[in-house]
């Protein structure tokens, strides 16, 4: 089914909005205005509730007063029954916005003789309509007349006339009818009310009941033909318009902290986008709930409302457990910033849960929603069922610009299975996917976190160790060894080891420098010594030369003297004789 353009359908057929969540969307604006609509279903499926809400919302929200003509309950009973949904019929009756008329027929006190018609009913209805200027009429359940009046021939003719009459008066009417065995209604009312037929259903599958609504027929208008799950909650009827949702939600650029500074750092330094969906998956005890709680806590710290859907722990238990890691949720609960909606997954079917979530979200208007965990919701459902329903929820949250965090339990258990195995097929719907893993090594189990994907932002590709302590949550860099990442005490040991290694290195350097300085000094000393030696030698050489020069001089003088003494003849050839 494609979503209709409202303007188009409005031009073809005037519609009367019901104000019922979701119903106006699948009918493209409401029930056919000025025409009767048949609402049928088995006992207890919510026909009366639908009718009452149609009337009350018409009177309160759309300024169309209405007449409720009831054939089964009386006015006091009905008023009491719908008070639990927040509808104060008695007040509306006083304000002349709604008129109640209980039509009761006791077969035993009625004798039938001769010709008659149901003009009395017309007169009563007409009177009620005129008294408040009604635009809407509910007949609930007109079929009760079949039990009260023996002459069905007359009754049928009169009902036909009644519906015609309602149409002529321009009343938007809801006529409820009991589901029949072979036909849509037990007495074949669909023969007379042909403009719009809505069926309600209350089915029990695997011991879990789900209410569903279907627009069987809508003459002159396109409409959603699927079965839509609905809920009768504290605020009345609520229908989850699955396929009418469009993929046109806005994408704000505003970023939101996850509450864990180091995690924000991994997500481009600023956290996740507002209105995006975050998926945290991991096996048991990896700290998914803690991340969820921190996320909610961070929202409350910013003064925003946070809503936690808890499907594993009670509200008190979450508060207690989170206190142990330094997250105190109690003040937020007291202030009304935080709401923990805890329920058992088996309480109702998946769709009902989603409708309930829908309702709670609409009422509480949170900025942040945490669902912990979605995997519990899906235990008894096949993936094909889960996908579209979760898609509806996520789309809904996105349309409301609510940032959502879903945790899910991976089925693998150990950290060895591929993370992709574990998902309920929702990964494609999620904008950010954080994966938590347990790593067992060195006699202990540690938690690792990494960002598997995060649309539209630079995000870290690195693994961090996820540490839960009294002081809170922190992410720590892991040490990457040769073949594995080191976490826990191994990481601490490695850190210590590295620290001491650095210390050693530093000392080594200093020692080397000292050695170098000493060596340089030694060399300098040596140079000085050599210099001194050189000078000494030079002095000695000088001295020797001087001595020799002197000696030679002396020798020459001596020889000259001797030659003189010998007389000089042969003296010319005589060899010189030195002292050495």
């Amino acid at each position, binding site marked *: 089914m494609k979503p209709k353009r409202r303007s188009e359908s409005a031009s073809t057929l005037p519609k009367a909005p019901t104000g019922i969540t979701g119903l106006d969307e699948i009918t493209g604006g409401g029930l056919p205005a000025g025409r009767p609509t048949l609402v049928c279903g088995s006992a207890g499926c919510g026909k009366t509730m639908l009718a009452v809400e149609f009337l009350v919302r018409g009177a309160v929200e759309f300024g169309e007063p209405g007449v409720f003509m009831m054939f089964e309950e009386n006015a006091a009973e009905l008023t009491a029954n719908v008070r639990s949904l927040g509808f104060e019929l008695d007040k509306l009756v006083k304000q002349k916005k709604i008129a109640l008329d209980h039509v009761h027929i006791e077969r035993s*006190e009625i*004798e039938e003789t001769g010709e008659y*018609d149901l003009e009395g*009913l017309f007169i*009563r209805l007409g009177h009620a309509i005129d008294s408040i200027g009604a635009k809407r009429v509910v007949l609930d359940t007109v079929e009760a007349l079949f039990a009260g009046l023996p002459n069905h021939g007359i009754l049928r003719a009169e009902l036909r006339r009644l519906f015609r009459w309602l149409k002529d008066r321009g009343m938007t009417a809801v006529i409820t009818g009991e589901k029949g065995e072979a036909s849509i209604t037990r007495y074949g009312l669909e023969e007379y009310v042909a403009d719009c037929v809505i069926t309600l259903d209350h089915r029990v599958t695997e011991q879990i009941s789900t209410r569903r609504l279907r627009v069987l027929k809508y003459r002159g208008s396109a409409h959603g033909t699927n079965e839509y799950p609905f809920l009768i909650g504290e605020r009345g009827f609520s229908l989850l318009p699955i396929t009418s949702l469009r993929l046109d939600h806005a994408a704000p650029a505003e970023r939101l902290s996850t509450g864990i500074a180091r995690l924000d750092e991994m997500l481009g330094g600023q956290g996740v986008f507002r209105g995006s969906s975050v998926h945290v998956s991991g096996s048991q005890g990896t700290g998914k709930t803690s991340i969820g709680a921190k996320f909610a806590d961070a929202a409350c710290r910013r003064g925003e409302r946070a809503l936690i859907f808890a499907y594993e722990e009670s509200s008190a238990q979450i508060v207690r457990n989170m206190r142990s890691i330094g997250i105190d949720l109690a003040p937020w609960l007291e202030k009304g910033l935080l709401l923990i909606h805890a329920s058992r997954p088996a309480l109702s079917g998946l769709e009902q849960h989603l409708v309930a979530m829908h309702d709670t979200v609409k009422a509480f208007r949170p900025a942040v929603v945490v669902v912990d965990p979605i995997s519990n919701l899906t235990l008894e459902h096949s993936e094909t069922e889960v996908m579209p329903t979760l898609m509806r929820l996520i789309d809904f949250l996105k349309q409301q610009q609510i940032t959502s965090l879903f945790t899910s339990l991976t089925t693998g258990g150990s950290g060895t299975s591929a993370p992709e195995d574990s998902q309920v097929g929702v990964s494609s719907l999620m904008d950010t996917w954080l994966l938590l893993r347990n790593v067992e090594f060195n006699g202990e189990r540690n938690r690792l976190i990494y960002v598997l994907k995060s649309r539209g932002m630079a995000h870290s590709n690195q693994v961090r160790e996820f540490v839960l302590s009294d002081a809170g949550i922190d992410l720590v860099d892991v040490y990457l060894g040769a073949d594995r990442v080191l976490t826990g005490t191994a990481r601490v040991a490695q850190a210590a080891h590295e620290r001491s290694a650095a210390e050693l290195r530093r000392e080594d350097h200093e020692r080397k420098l000292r050695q170098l300085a000493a060596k340089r000094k030694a060399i300098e000393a040596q140079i000085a010594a050599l210099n001194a030696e050189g000078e000494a030698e030079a002095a000695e050489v000088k001295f020797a030369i001087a001595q020799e020069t002197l000696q030679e001089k002396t020798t020459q003088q001596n020889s000259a003297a001797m030659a003189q003494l010998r007389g000089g003849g042969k003296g010319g050839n005589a060899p010189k004789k030195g002292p050495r």
Partner: protein
Amino acid sequence: MNKTKTYELRLYVAGQTAKSLAAFANLQRVCETHLAGQYRIEVIDLVKTPQLAAGDQILAVPTLVRRLPHPIKKIIGDLSNEERVLVGLDVQPVNE
């Protein structure tokens, strides 16, 4: 039945239709025949006083309501079958 009882009867009609007129005529005849002097008939035209319809849970017209003696009894139709009217009113027919 006790002959001292008073029958307080109310006939609801919607305008002067053939059925209304027939019902009134039939009722008068039955009462004159079987309840002479012990009855009082009040005719209510719902077209003129529609607000009275809810009080006696009137749906069909014509409807004859026996308000007294208790308990309340109702007969719907134009009262053409005298026997059924008597049964409905819980009146012993006077055998003439």
